[in-house]
């Protein structure tokens, strides 16, 4: 059985680029423990040699020629329409390095 400590939660939040409030850090370990305890029931089921199902229909990979379809392209002004921080035809992002 796995239980998440407040430190684990902070680490996962950091990896998920989330800032947690002090309430979140207090509440989440207990709430997630309930979920993790519940899903223990999967151990009742024998799954050796069972394939994983990531997909439920018989759909196959769809291949397409690598050509530009202008009918589904956005112009840069349309693509930038909802951005809060932009310059010319660029999105401004946080400095990474």
């Amino acid at each position: 059985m796995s239980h998440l400590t407040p430190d684990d939660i902070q680490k996962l939040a950091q990896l998920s680029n989330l800032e947690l409030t002090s309430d979140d850090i207090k509440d989440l370990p207990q709430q997630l423990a309930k979920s993790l305890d519940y899903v223990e029931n999967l151990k009742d089921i024998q799954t050796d040699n069972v394939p994983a199902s990531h997909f439920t229909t018989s759909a196959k990979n769809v291949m397409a020629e690598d050509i530009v379809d202008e009918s589904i392209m956005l112009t840069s002004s349309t693509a930038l329409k909802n951005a809060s921080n932009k310059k010319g035809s660029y999105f401004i992002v946080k400095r990474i390095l």
Partner: protein
Amino acid sequence: MSFLGRSLASLLSEGAVGNEVFEFFMKRIRTYDDKIHAFVPGGIADIFSAAKTGVLCGLPLALKDNIVTANLPTTASSKILEGYISPYDATVVTGLQTAGASFLGKTNLDAWAHGSSTEASDFGPTSNPYNLERVPGGSSGGSAAAVAAGLAPAAIGTETAGSIRLPAAWCGVVGLKPTYGRVSRYGIIAMGSSWDCPGPITQTVEDAALLLEVIAGQDPKDATSMSIPVEKWSKLLKTEKKLTIGYADEYFKDVDPEIMASVENAMHALEDRGHTLKKITMLDPKYAISVYMILQRAEVSSNLARYTGVRYGMNRTAFGKEAKKRIILGAFVLSSGYVDEYYKKAAKVRYLLAQDFKKAFEDVDVILAPTTPVTATRIGDADAYAFFGEMMDVLTEPAAAAGIPAISIPAGLSEAGLPIGVQLMGKHFDETTVLQIAYQLEQDLAFDRQAIFEKYA
């Protein structure tokens, strides 16, 4: 002229004109939505814009607000997307517009469709038209409440695991979750990508069939949509075929006795029609809760990673409590050292759930079950649960995990005056049989969907 309580099919056969019908419902929204909050703030269309041609002749619909529209804001009921206007329309929207639909507006949901009560909307809860202190269910709660209260003649919702069927059951309307891949997901704000499925929420089974005809079909923009012929389901509803209807005790466990009485009533009605009832054994739906809780959280943590505030919307500090909880659990079940124990295990059990249905459908044509274990809960009740949605969706999750079609139709009212739903689950891409049996049951159960309008007239 009153269009209240008319199904799309009857409006069409009466030759009702799109803009008149639109104005009629718009007036009702302005009068009654203050009480119900079926629509999101800023999400009401106001202006009729549709060709009065096509299959739908301009008739108005409500759209769940996680379906992107270029002419109306789309928020998924989240603060992050408040005021967001999509540069493109979802494929279902384009399809409906081509068929002549007009849109009354965008309906409320649990933010990002994370929930089963519509209380987790960042813009506040929707009320159940049958009892304003109760929830409408979710996550397509606004769509179901709008149809139930006569604020829209029909609506489009989306389901990941119960989000169409549960609110349909709790609001006394029809909700159809098509087969995964039957309807394009392009332009549906992604939640659980291997589960998500748009579908109709309507007053009648015939209308669900009619709308499915419009929205179904392969879409080059969604590689998971499939090339399976789209039928004229609304013309195929009447059949003389005698079928075998399965039922399983595993779906009756811990179900409210009043709901069970409605299910038994439905079983008798089917028998009276000459269908054969057959008891089958299914995997306990409690395992579907676990499968869903793991796989959906994993997909959520990935899908919500795109909300960085760079291209659109606010930054990640605007996520609500529920979204943060799901992202963190999703990141955990996918993390190194735990991925086998959780994610891979759940994916294997998902395979077994799908096989379980496959095996059952060797013996039966459809499976009948209650849609929900209880009737609509009180606003605020969800807070007492660590995972309210999963517990309420226990009976809808297995079909969602298996990707099969299922429909919930109203089967009566509880003593407290709350709607009860029964569901029919069918084989992959066999919406035809599901709709046919639902159509028969709808006539036999004769639910009075008009009575509620007295509260809103």
